[in-house]
């Protein structure tokens, strides 16, 4: 759990403070200095419009990480509500919710997101909608499974018989039981959202220029692959490092939880 919190802290710090330490304006166009190699003025060089790549990367953290955080949290809320509805709402609600999750899971999320974002028109709003709509099913499945098993547990039944309000039961019995598994699923979905945002940005369906999103930066850099290949390395590396860090934290958390379960 601690590793995930530390990691989240680092990412929040990066998204908040990154723009503050950026040496240049990420959207300032400077044609005279276009495609300059790395040097004292431009630590990582400049892009085709003479914009400082390091500044764009640092500002891009706000888009790539911030949006991914937002998307994964909205998905978490949506999926949890759907999962609870399936577990508590009776047979019909369960059937409807589970067939809906099946329908969404039956399809590769990224392809669905590309179709949704592309059809609704490129932009940050449709990007968020597309990745959220395709990213809540795993939470719903986990929550439904745990919810169903909790329903018949002695302490939950007793709490109900003792007249505890549903809200109190949710707070004191459901939340603690759901938290660990949901955190593991959340790390996976956070990483997926970062990859999804960069893929949609690269296809031109995501965050629009001149905003410095990492996928969009790769789209720009691709054209100048021959003359300035290094330009294409940095945004990709940023994505890989962030996704890798999140995945490793998620794995560590999952292993610890598995260990605790074995002990218990």
């Amino acid at each position: 759990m601690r590793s995930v919190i530390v990691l989240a802290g680092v990412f929040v710090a990066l998204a908040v403070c990154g723009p503050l330490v950026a040496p240049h304006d990420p959207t300032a166009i400077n044609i005279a200095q276009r495609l300059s190699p790395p040097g004292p003025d431009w630590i990582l060089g400049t892009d085709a419009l003479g914009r400082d790549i390091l500044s764009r990367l640092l500002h891009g953290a706000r888009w790539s990480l911030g949006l991914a955080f937002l998307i994964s949290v909205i998905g978490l809320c949506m999926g949890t509500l759907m999962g609870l509805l399936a577990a508590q709402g009776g047979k019909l609600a369960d059937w409807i919710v589970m067939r809906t999750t099946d329908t969404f899971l039956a399809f590769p999320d990224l392809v669905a997101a590309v179709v949704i974002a592309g059809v609704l028109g490129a932009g940050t709003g449709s990007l968020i909608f597309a990745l959220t709509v395709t990213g809540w099913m795993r939470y719903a499945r986990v929550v439904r499974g745990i919810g169903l098993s909790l329903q018949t547990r002695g302490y939950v039944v007793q709490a109900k018989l003792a007249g505890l309000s549903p809200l109190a039961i949710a707070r004191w019995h459901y939340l603690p039981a759901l938290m660990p598994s949901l955190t593991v699923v959340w790390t996976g979905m956070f990483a997926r959202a970062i990859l999804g945002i960069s893929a949609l940005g690269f296809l031109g369906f995501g965050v629009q220029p001149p905003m410095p999103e990492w996928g969009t930066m790769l789209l720009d850099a691709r054209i100048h692959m021959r003359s300035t290949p290094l330009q294409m390395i940095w945004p990709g590396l940023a994505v890989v490092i962030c996704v890798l860090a999140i995945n490793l934290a998620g794995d560590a958390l999952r292993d610890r939880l598995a260990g605790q379960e074995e002990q218990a």
Partner: protein
Amino acid sequence: MRVILSLLLRAAVVLAGTALATFTLLWHAPGDPALAIALARFRSVVPDAVIEQVRVEAGFDAGFWPAFLSWLGPILLGDFGQSSVTGRDVWPELVTAMSYTFPLALSGLAIGVALSIPLALLATRHPGGWLDRFAVALASIGVAIPQFWLGLLLILLFAVQLGWLPAMGARTPTHLILPALTLGLTVSASLTRILRSGILEARGRPFLPAFRRRGVSEAHLTRNHIAPHAAIPVVTVFGLELAFLLEGVVMVEVIFARPGLGIFLVGAIEARDFPKVQAVVILAALLFVTVNLLIDLLYQVIDPRIGDRDA
């Protein structure tokens, strides 16, 4: 038998749900679809009368449900309609696109399997050893790399810097090498992770020491006891793996300008050619539902205890 029937019913519901979701999305897409069709067809300013004519022709005037049913009917009979831009039948173009996508997807899958099985077997020989750590590190990085960026890096190295392999298009068989490698490397990363944990778990089964004490050989144990147990998680995730493969195909085709389903889909979205978009979505959904159905049926064979996966 009851399980099979319920699986079939579920597959049908999922397909109908996908069709409905797709149609709803396109129905609510911004802009007037009739205007888009008219503009695409006549490529100039069109009078309102023509737009209205297109609207009636396409059945858009009748409201959501009649339009949905009149679209779904022909598809059930295998008729995907005509492109709203060119007016040509969608199906032959779809078949051409598939003829580029399937070799890519299959060779990517083959490379992935060919790399991951030996790697997972070598890694699990000494769990925690340097080879195991190396395999885990490699797989972790492979899962974190965006496929399109890996493709760009391979183009940069093998096509731009070394000049060994062609990068763009699909004219010759050598054009398949780089895209298939991109796909195969990312697939092998996730497969290695799954195989490794599957094998480790199977090795930890309590019946193995009992067999060893009775003098059963290691080779026999691996073949008849460890492999089947390691196969179950692989079958479970194969459906997910296929989804991952199709996602990869879309991105990889765009990177390498290979005229398969990925380019077909992205091009159709950009041209707002909705019949084409619908056709790809329905086709993909059909593919996935079929594969998942086969997996569920295969489960019944491998491990009859599992029964219904949700229950």
